[in-house]
């Protein structure tokens, strides 16, 4: 039985999405500590025991719950009951609700016995979740030195009868908002600043590439031609890698984000598709069946120095670069099912991350710590998140709805 993805009114959702960026912060303490609380690169790190308590109306409990959920998901914190001894870090959240929501977050280092963060947050009540995620981000970066992803978004497609629409939700699956409702849309990518979506859409029997401005919902056509045009990824200097079969066979192209300077990079008789730039923009990984079966290849951004990356398995697709450029996640077929692997960009190491059901379309979080993907392990396809070592695989879209093709947003600027 299919349930429709529960979405509030389209207008309201877009307004919430945009307005969630208006949070006013006051910081009374600038943290600049030399103490390293969690070194997540160290292979032997242990989870940091942390307790979160709250004071105030209903909203306080909700905010504390979201912060605890955010930090717990990272797998590097050990949330503890505030009444039990053992926490090393103590977080207190005091909330006041007048015409706006105001929260004070105080973080104590219980070992050194001093406050290490006092920060005040103000926001309209209806973006309570964004305020809570702000708190999570600050605690996370304070204790790990890395940027938190709790205010990033996930774009994905959801099917309804014959249509495939584009949605954006919070990193944890909340607040889904439909952004493209026309026809069949997929192969989307975020712009560098997160304020535009570039995607392919089938309209009137043709697959063309469009750009949507998320701030004003205006859509422009970027590339159209006879045949199949699909979006790959974006480079740090705003070039879009895409595939087009306008010359007969599906080949890899790049163009500027305004659609100009189209350059063809591959020339083969088979299928070349799914091009993604490395984070430094110097290389492109893509899928090609020129060797007889679909495999991942890498070439430089001018289409030269082409080499094959995957040699294990008969069917490897869907490449995604990690933000540090060291790994490429992809989908490999094993024992009749699709699984997510990561391979070192120099081919020297492969790790399998999933083994239940069919798992596809991996995408990295911008801090490189998590991967989102889709999985049908419990029936209908849904969006899942996991740590990059494959732990904590968690579904974030509701059961009974069909969601797939996730793309993790950048940090919003």
């Amino acid at each position, binding site marked *: 039985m299919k349930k429709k993805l529960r979405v509030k009114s389209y207008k309201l959702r877009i307004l919430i999405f945009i307005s969630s960026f208006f949070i006013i912060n006051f*910081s009374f303490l600038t943290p600049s500590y030399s103490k390293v609380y969690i070194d997540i690169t160290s292979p032997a790190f242990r989870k940091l025991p942390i307790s979160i308590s709250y004071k105030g109306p209903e909203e306080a409990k909700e905010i504390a719950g979201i912060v605890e959920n955010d930090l717990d998901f990272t797998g590097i914190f050990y949330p503890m009951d505030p009444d039990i001894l053992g926490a090393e870090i103590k977080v207190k959240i005091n909330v006041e609700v007048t015409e706006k929501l105001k929260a004070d977050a105080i973080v104590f280092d219980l070992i050194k016995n001093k406050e290490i963060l006092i920060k005040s947050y103000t926001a309209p009540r209806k973006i309570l979740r964004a305020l809570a995620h702000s708190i999570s981000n600050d605690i996370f970066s304070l204790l790990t030195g890395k940027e938190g992803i709790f205010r990033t978004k996930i774009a994905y497609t959801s099917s309804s009868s014959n249509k495939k629409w584009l949605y954006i939700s919070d990193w944890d699956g909340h607040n889904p908002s439909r952004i493209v409702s026309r026809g069949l849309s997929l192969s989307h990518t975020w712009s560098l600043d997160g304020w535009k979506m570039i995607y392919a859409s089938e309209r009137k029997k043709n697959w063309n590439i469009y750009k949507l401005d998320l*701030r004003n919902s205006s*859509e422009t056509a970027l590339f159209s031609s006879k045949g199949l045009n699909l979006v790959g990824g974006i480079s740090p200097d705003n070039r879009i890698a895409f595939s087009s079969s306008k010359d007969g066979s599906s080949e890899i192209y790049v163009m500027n984000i305004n659609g100009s300077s189209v350059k063809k990079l591959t020339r083969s008789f088979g299928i070349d598709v799914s091009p993604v730039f490395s984070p430094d923009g110097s290389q492109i990984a893509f899928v090609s069946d020129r060797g007889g079966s679909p495999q991942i290849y890498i070439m430089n951004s001018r289409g030269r120095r082409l080499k094959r990356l995957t040699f294990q398995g008969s069917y490897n697709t869907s490449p995604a670069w990690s933000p540090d450029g060291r790994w490429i996640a992809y989908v490999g077929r094993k024992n009749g099912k699709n699984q997510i692997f990561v391979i070192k960009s120099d081919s020297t190491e492969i790790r399998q991350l999933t083994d239940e059901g069919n798992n596809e*379309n991996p995408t990295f979080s911008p801090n490189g710590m998590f991967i989102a993907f889709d999985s049908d392990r419990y029936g209908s396809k849904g969006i899942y998140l996991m740590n990059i070592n494959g732990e904590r695989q968690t579904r974030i879209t509701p059961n009974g709805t069909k969601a797939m093709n996730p793309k993790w947003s950048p940090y919003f600027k």
Partner: protein
Amino acid sequence: MKKVLVLVLVIFAFGCSKKYVQPHDEVDSNIVAVKEEISHEESHGKGDMDSSVVDESLFEFKDALFDYDKYTIRPDARDALDSVATWLNSHKGINVMIEGHCDERGTNEYNLALGEKRAKAARDYLIAQGISSRRMATITYGEEKPLCPHDNEACWQMNRRAHFVVTK
């Protein structure tokens, strides 16, 4: 080093500029466009059936089926395509849209490209049978519009197809 900030107000606006845009009209017109598109497609479908002057039984062309990850024309696909060619040769005024489809294994993007190869292979075969290229258009749907929803080879085979739809 601990610094104490006294009465320093830091106003943090995350993300976008101060402009707070109300996306009313574009949003509404997008939804209107979807409704129009749906009703247009439905009436278009009905129109085909009503205005045909041909034998109804021949309207359901058999699909041309393909092997896994292949777009070569098999002997059984040749039979299906030959029937289409025969029909098109005796109904000169009518055109056909060839849809390429895949089973749902594999990435959506790769399957769209594979579906396109299948549609084009079918079209090339029909051109070789003397059908004018101007009468045939192709479109791919990859794995997006399966005929059969189950997880087994019988279903997957049904989905790996070139499907023929008569157009005006």
